C-alpha cells in the first residue's frame, strides 16, 4: 500500500513535468500542424546551456537557469526562421517539415555529444535533502518539480483563456489564412510559439536534469512523452494536453507498481494506439460538427 501511494505521488510529480512537455510540443504541433521532432533537440539545449554556464563557467545557478531558458528560446526561434519558415514559404509539405525536423534533431544531438560527451552530466550540487510525510518520502527536487511545473502549466492556462494574442495563436492552427487576413501579427505570433514551446521544454528539461542529470539522448524520450500526451488527450484542447500528460504519468506509475519500470514505453505507446483506434480526436476533445473534421 505504501508503495502504491508512493508511486502515485511520484506519478503526480511526473505529471507536472509531462504537462510541461505536452504544452511545449502541443504549441508548435497545434499551431503549425507538423510533427515537431526538433522539440527533442530544443529540450536538451537549455540544460546543456545551464551546465556550461553554471558548472563550466561558474555563474550562479539562478542566473544560469534564466540565461539557459533564454538560449533555449532563441534556439527554437532561430530554428524556425532558418529552416521551417523558408521551407513553408516554398510550400513544403508537412512530410518535408517532418524530415527537416528530424535532421535538426540528429544534428543538435551529435553536436552536443561532440562538445560535452555522451555520458550523463550532473547539474545539481550536493545531496538532495528529502522529507517524509508519514511513510512516504519526498525529495526537495520533487517538491520543486511539483510546484514549478503545475504553477507554470496552470498559469499558462489562465493566460490562454484571457489573452487575445493567445487566441490568435490558437486560431493559427485551424485557419492560418484567416489569421493573416484579419491583420493579426502572424510572424510575431509564430515567433512566440517557438519561443514559448522552447521555454516549456527548457523548464521540463531543467527540472529533470537538476534531479537526475542529462545526456544528449534524453530529448527523444521527452519528445515522445509530450507528443503522446497531446495526441491522447486531444490536439485541439489545452485541457486535453494536460489530461493526456496526467493519464500517462499515473498509468506509468501503476505499471511500475504492477510490473516494472521497463514497461513504461509499452504503456506510453499502448495508450496511444488504443486512443488512436477508438477515439482518434483524443480523449478530452469537445463535441464538434462532423464536417469540421
Amino acid at each position, binding site marked *: 500500500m505504501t508503495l502504491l501511494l508512493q508511486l502515485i505521488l511520484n506519478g503526480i510529480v511526473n505529471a507536472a513535468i509531462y504537462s510541461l512537455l505536452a504544452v511545449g510540443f502541443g504549441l508548435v504541433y497545434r499551431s503549425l500542424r507538423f510533427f515537431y521532432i526538433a522539440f527533442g533537440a530544443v529540450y536538451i539545449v537549455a540544460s546543456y546551456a545551464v551546465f556550461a554556464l553554471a558548472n563550466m563557467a561558474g555563474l550562479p545557478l539562478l542566473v544560469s537557469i534564466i540565461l539557459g531558458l533564454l538560449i533555449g528560446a532563441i534556439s527554437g526561434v532561430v530554428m524556425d526562421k532558418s529552416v521551417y519558415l523558408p521551407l513553408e514559404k516554398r510550400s513544403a509539405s508537412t512530410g518535408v517539415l517532418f524530415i527537416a525536423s528530424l535532421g535538426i534533431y540528429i544534428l543538435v544531438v551529435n553536436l552536443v555529444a561532440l562538445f560535452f560527451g555522451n555520458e550523463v552530466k550532473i547539474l545539481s550540487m550536493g545531496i538532495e535533502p528529502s522529507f517524509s510525510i508519514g511513510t512516504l518520502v519526498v525529495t526537495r527536487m520533487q517538491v520543486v518539480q511539483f510546484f514549478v511545473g503545475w504553477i507554470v502549466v496552470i498559469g499558462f492556462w489562465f493566460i490562454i483563456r484571457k489573452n487575445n494574442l493567445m487566441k490568435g495563436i490558437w486560431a493559427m492552427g485551424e485557419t492560418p489564412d484567416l489569421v493573416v487576413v484579419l491583420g493579426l501579427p502572424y510572424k510575431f505570433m509564430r515567433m512566440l510559439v517557438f519561443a514559448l514551446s522552447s521555454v516549456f521544454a527548457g523548464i521540463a528539461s531543467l527540472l529533470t536534469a537538476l534531479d537526475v542529470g542529462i545526456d544528449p539522448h534524453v530529448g527523444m524520450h521527452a519528445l515522445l512523452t509530450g507528443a503522446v500526451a497531446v495526441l491522447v488527450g486531444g490536439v485541439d484542447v489545452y485541457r486535453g494536453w494536460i489530461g493526456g500528460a496526467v493519464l500517462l504519468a499515473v498509468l506509468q506509475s501503476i505499471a511500475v507498481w504492477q510490473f516494472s519500470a521497463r514497461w513504461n514505453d509499452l504503456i506510453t505507446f499502448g495508450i496511444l494506439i488504443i486512443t488512436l483506434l477508438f477515439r482518434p480526436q483524443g480523449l478530452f476533445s469537445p463535441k464538434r*460538427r462532423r464536417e469540421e473534421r
Partner: protein
Amino acid sequence: MEMLLQIEGIDASYGKRQILHEISMNLSRGEKVLLIGPNGAGKTTLLKTVIGLLPPGNGAVNYLGEDITGDSVRTRVRKGISYLLQTENIVPGLTVEENLALGGYFLSKQELEKRKNMVLDSMEFLKPKLKTRAGLMSGGERQGLALSMILMRNPKVLLLDEPSAGLAPKAAKEIIERLDKIQAAFQVETVCMVEHNLKLALKWATKIILLVQGRVVLVSDSPKSFIQQPEELEKYFFEQV
C-alpha cells in the same frame, strides 16, 4: 466619382501556372461591384492579390492614390481593406465572441465593445450565440459571423468572396439583402463581391465585371444592360437570368 481602389494590369501565378492575365479594374466610392465568372476563372485569386495574400507577378494595386502593391496584408487591413475568405473564414474552435474579438484585434477595450455591439445590432441572430463554439453553428450563421468579423475593424473597402456560399436560397437572399444596410451602417465606401447567385446579386450591384480564364472579358455599368447580353452570358453560365 472618386477612385478608391485601382487595379492595374495584374498578373498572378501559382508556381509556374499563370492564373491572372493583365487584370485592370477600378472601384470608386459608392460603387457596388459584382465579380462573376465560371469556377476556376480566378476570382478568388484576384481578391487574394488585392488583399496581399498573393504577390502579383506584374502590375500594381493603388489605394486612395497610393501604391500599396508592396504592403503586407496587415498594413492593407489597417488602411481599411477587408477580405472575406471564401472558405475557413471563422475559427471553429473559438466561441463567437472570441472570433469577434480576433476581428477587432487592434482595437482598445472600449472600442472593441462598441464595435461589437454595433455589429451585433446588424446581426441580431448572433446575440444569443456569443458563447457558442463557432464550429457548431449553421452555415448561414457562420457566414454572418465571418462578415461580422471583418466589419470589426471599420473597413472602407469590403472584398467579399461568395458570402452566400453553401446557403439555402432564403439565407442567401437575407445575407445579400443585408449588405446595403451594413454598408450604410458601417460607412463602407465600396464593396466588391464574388457571387454565383446572379438573380440576387444583379439586384444589388451597380457594376458588373465578368472574369473568364483569368481575363476581364466584360465590364458593365448597368445590371439591366448586362442581362440583355444573353450570348455573352450563356457562353459562361447556363442560368437564365
